[in-house]
């Protein structure tokens, strides 16, 4: 089966700034594909080229076998888009917007079901300008899905939503995917990427650093384990650093923090037992996707791209 989205050697610059240097990626049918990366990494520019909103300087893009620039009419019927900054007329009511947008597509989804699914049913008669940020966000998700698209590209899906609304939105997206829609998610939320995405492309400085499952990405960052405990009596750091599975030892007050590979826990507990030291309040943390992100890009994942 041909890939749903194929991007090859995409390059895009704005005046003197290279937004996307060289991005290649493949999105498969039926998956939730995440695009993760720090601010200004080129995530949004990449998807805007895929949507046909921007003209790439170089490279090739196919969406469902269509060229985003030349086959616009056909593409817009099959591709649902949620823009990071895309609005509606201020005085348009929620239900009016959904009805209007559903008239644009040959086989639209049921807008009332979308309204319910996104918790906007009681806002049907509310004007766009009177909606809260989170409600506007949910409406823009609904509009991305209203055409019953084969592929939906969602940029900053849950930015501005409270935790409950975020979880509800994740459930909705999983439901949409289970009905056969392929989803591309641009995000900077690690929790969201970990929970929703089948595969992730990590983009940094306009290039794809790595494409893998969330677990695979974490593994490949080779961060291993972090072990914290309070020793029952003073322990010499050298006792631990001499272990081949341990990569580092630090102290946080009374606590000893040991970093090491997947065998570190075994090695540490063994050497402590041999020296009759009890590890109190022992905690083992697996590296998170966030740790992997920091390791692989050298940056912290912060807020959405500034506009």
């Amino acid at each position: 089966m041909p890939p749903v989205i194929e991007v090859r050697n995409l390059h895009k610059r704005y005046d003197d700034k290279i937004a996307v240097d060289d991005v290649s990626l493949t999105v498969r049918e039926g998956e939730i594909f995440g695009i993760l990366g720090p601010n200004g990494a080129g995530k949004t520019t990449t998807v805007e080229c895929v949507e046909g909103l921007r003209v790439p300087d170089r490279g090739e893009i196919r969406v469902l076998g269509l060229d985003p620039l030349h086959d616009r009419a056909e593409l817009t019927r099959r591709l649902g888009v949620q823009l990071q900054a895309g609005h509606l007329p201020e005085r348009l009511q929620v239900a009016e917007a959904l009805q209007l947008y559903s008239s644009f597509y040959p086989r639209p989804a049921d807008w009332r079901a979308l309204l319910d699914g996104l918790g906007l049913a009681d806002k049907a008669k509310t004007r766009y300008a009177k909606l809260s940020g989170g409600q506007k966000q949910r409406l823009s998700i609904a509009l991305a899905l209203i055409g019953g698209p084969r592929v939906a590209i969602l940029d900053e899906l849950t930015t501005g939503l409270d935790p409950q609304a975020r979880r509800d939105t994740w459930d909705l997206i999983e439901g949409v995917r289970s009905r056969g829609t392929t989803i591309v998610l641009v995000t900077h939320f690690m929790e969201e990427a970990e929970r929703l995405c089948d595969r992730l492309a990590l983009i940094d400085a306009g290039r794809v650093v790595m494409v893998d499952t969330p677990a695979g990405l974490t593994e490949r960052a080779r961060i291993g384990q972090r072990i914290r405990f309070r020793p029952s009596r003073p322990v010499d750091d050298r006792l631990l650093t001499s272990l081949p599975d341990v990569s580092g030892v630090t102290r946080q007050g009374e606590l000893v923090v040991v970093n090491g590979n997947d065998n570190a826990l075994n090695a540490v507990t063994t050497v402590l037992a041999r020296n009759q030291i009890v590890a109190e309040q022992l905690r083992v943390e697996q590296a998170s996707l966030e740790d992997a992100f920091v390791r692989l890009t050298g940056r912290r994942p912060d807020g959405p791209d500034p506009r």
Partner: protein
Amino acid sequence: MSALPTAERGSATWRLVKAESTLCVRDKVAPLWGIGFPLVLLIVLGSVPDLREPVEGSGGLTYFDLYVPVLVLFNLAILATASLPTTLAGYRENGVLRRMRTTPVGPARVLAAQLVANFAIAVVAMVLFLAVAGFGFGVDLPQHLPGFALAWLLAAGALLAIGLLITALAPGRGPATAIGTVLFFPMMFFAGLWVPISQMPPLLRDIAHYTPLGAGMGAFQDAYLGHFPSAVPLLTLAAYAVVCAFAAVRWFRWE
């Protein structure tokens, strides 16, 4: 997800026109300043006996007779300088047009729907003003009705094209409103809102004939007096419509 019956959906274009018309009415600029204000003015002026005196050099038309077409032009001018460009520049600024680019319908049809909505409001206003002037104050309809209709269509075309050009050239909603306001007053002056064109000094009168509303007024006056409007005002209006529409299309930006 089930498809809705086609009847409920209607065609996208028709729904857009309906939505944009609803939005125009909710926006209040068109109904309030485009219809309400000139209508009140019409009623007030119609109640002033002094305005029932014939204007010198106007073929026997009274001051009030002349105010009826002036207020018809007032409506067009409000739509073209305040309603249309402010709305469309706002759409561009807020990403409404950009959002439309990702749908099968595209942003050009939003523009078209806005034009149709404003045109519809203009038709309603024109009919209403003529009816109120006729039934309320005994002002006869233009004697040459087809000529009047043609002149009005050309005037509406010219003014809406000017509105589009303002939208195209203004970088945002604020500047669009400012340009519109600055254009509105001189245009209305040359339509004869404050002084009838025939009472203006010769230089101003000559200028007036080549402004969009002055040309519109000249064509309307011909129609009121029973002639088919002369070529100069009609061609002037057509030229404004074509040139401004062409320039607007040339320089229009969706984002």
